[in-house]
């Protein structure tokens, strides 16, 4: 876990506030490169807030602010001279509900690259991205059809392909399978194993089996016990260790299903 070369992004003493309300309290977390890091925990403990802090999506919530640091390549992404647009280009996101643009499948992929000034062969990029998202075979003959014509699972893979197309370093996934059936879920999980060869993935899930199946590291989040209603990471470890030999009693209760 140590050694800066292996760390894709890390938080140091991160607090997140929504106006006066403290949503995340004192989180220090290191996300390793080309691994899948899962964030689990009961509802309302701030998993999504935590995830959205990584690519500054919380900036759109009025009154949201972050204290502490999130370091990427040793640079705080919340520093005043950092443009959140650049952060989001380098840290892609896949959302809970598949949200393809109401455009063609081709344009869904091409748009992100185009607005980021991509100058190369667009057809090639679209093909490569769709192949990386294991969607190419299913859609290669209907690239001009609307992205909304696909099934839910295909739409979610299209969203992943769209995120890949801008060549991010990290992909954040916010419960990417919660709107999908088990077969589509399985496909996404297999895809994640492929993707981690090239990308670092952080996934929020409320499905503990999923976290156990797919992730290398797991962060267990819970509301802090000081009564502040702020979420914090109570335990962070290699997934296997966290699920089999949790150090914290609360983690043990949660992963064994006694609570949550």
């Amino acid at each position, binding site marked *: 876990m140590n050694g800066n070369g292996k760390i894709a992004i890390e938080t140091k003493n991160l607090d997140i506030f929504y106006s006066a309300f403290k949503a995340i309290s004192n989180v220090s977390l290191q996300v390793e490169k080309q691994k899948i890091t899962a964030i689990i925990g009961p509802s309302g403990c701030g998993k999504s807030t935590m995830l959205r802090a990584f690519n500054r999506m919380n900036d759109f919530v009025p009154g949201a602010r972050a204290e502490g640091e999130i370091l990427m390549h040793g640079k705080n992404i919340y520093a005043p001279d950092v443009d959140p647009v650049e952060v*989001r280009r380098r840290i892609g996101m896949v*959302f809970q509900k598949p*949200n393809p*643009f109401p455009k063609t499948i081709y344009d869904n992929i091409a748009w*992100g690259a185009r607005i*980021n000034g991509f100058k190369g062969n667009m057809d090639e990029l679209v093909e490569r991205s769709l192949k990386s998202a294991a969607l190419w075979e299913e859609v290669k003959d209907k690239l001009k059809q*609307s992205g909304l014509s696909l099934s839910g699972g295909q739409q979610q893979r299209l*969203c992943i392909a769209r995120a890949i197309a*801008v060549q991010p370093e990290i992909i954040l996934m916010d419960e990417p399978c919660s709107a999908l059936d088990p077969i589509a879920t399985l496909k996404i999980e297999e895809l994640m194993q492929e993707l981690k060869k090239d990308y670092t993935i952080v996934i929020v899930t409320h499905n503990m089996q999923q976290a156990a199946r797919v992730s290398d590291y797991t962060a267990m989040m819970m509301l802090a016990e000081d009564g502040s209603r702020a979420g914090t990471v109570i335990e962070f470890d290699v997934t296997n260790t966290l699920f089999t030999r949790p150090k914290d009693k609360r983690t043990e209760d949660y992963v064994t299903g006694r609570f949550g």
Partner: protein
Amino acid sequence: MSAPTLTFTSDQALQVRNRIGSVWRIIFLLATCIGIISLLALLYNIVDRSFGLVAYEYKVDPATLADRPLDQLSKEELVAVLQANISKGAFGKLEKDKPMADRSYDDIYGLVFERVVGQKVVATWPLTDSLLRRSEIEAELTEDEPQAVLQFRSWLSADFVTRPMASQAEFAGVRTAILGSLWLITITITIALPIGVGAAVYLQEYASDNPINRLIQTNINNLAGVPSIVYGMLGLAIFVRAWEPLTSGALFGVTDSNGRTILAAGLTMALLILPLIIINAQEAIKAVPDSLRQAAYGLGATKWQTVWSHVLPNAIPGILTGSILAISRAIGETAPLIVVGASTFITVNPDGPFSKFTALPIQIYTWTSRPQDEFRNIAAAAILVLLIMLLSLNSIAIILRNRFTRRL
């Protein structure tokens, strides 16, 4: 112990509920019927006035003027008839206004009827009377005005649409008014739509939720309800008077006009429909799902890229619906036009934003206030023209809207 009685619905209670439901259904049906009946009554009234019998009286019987009926004569023969039957001075004056050779056939035909034949409308009847009581009307007419000729006339005709304004109802047309209205609506939309959509984008996507912006929002909502005559006063003070160099075209080298131009009226109308467009565009932008914005931002799009590529394209159908309402409002407005000084008697086509103008509602307003019956007929015909124009402009907007909706 018996189980607690759970009587949710006795048969009687259900009957009562159903009866209440039917009563409300009938009330809603009645409301709809009243609306439809009012609309039909309005249409009937207009159509009834636009067609019908007319009794003409002639000073000179047209059959005696030439060896053939007048409408078979050539232009040159008509000029000869005109020359032979009016005084030399009067003919010279006409020739001086516009040489006979330059005048159109219709123009000369009209002059012959006006100057030589002396056609005069004695009476007009609405469509229903004309169809149902024709014999009574004929009897009445032979008794009162034995000289008069009875004719069925469609006041709405190709001539009516293509002729300019004239002092006699039977020769008057709405060409100048149609062109005036079209110019007006074009200027209004080109000014109000970009400004309105721009303001809506700013208020919806950029403005933060602070007291100043809330105040602006409230005021825009209130402006939508301000009476149109107030906008007319504003237009008179600002566009006609204060901005006269601009609205009269003096800045662009136009010399022969004052501030009472199409441009001034268009600016006033733009101001009038601006709140409508802003509010509707805001609603349309609000309806674009937030997940699309999130997806775009998540890819590293700037705010502008997100708005331009996703928010606006998805809001266009809604924005167009709003502009349909705005166009309808602007095309039918009369009060502000009267205040900013639309002319009522214009015989030349408006040829640009700096010309004097009249508009259809102005024509209708002037004609309905004339005492002669026949002016009410042409007012009704002009209302039909206005309705047709309104519907065609709206259908363009609807077609555009459907095209944009299908593309998604």
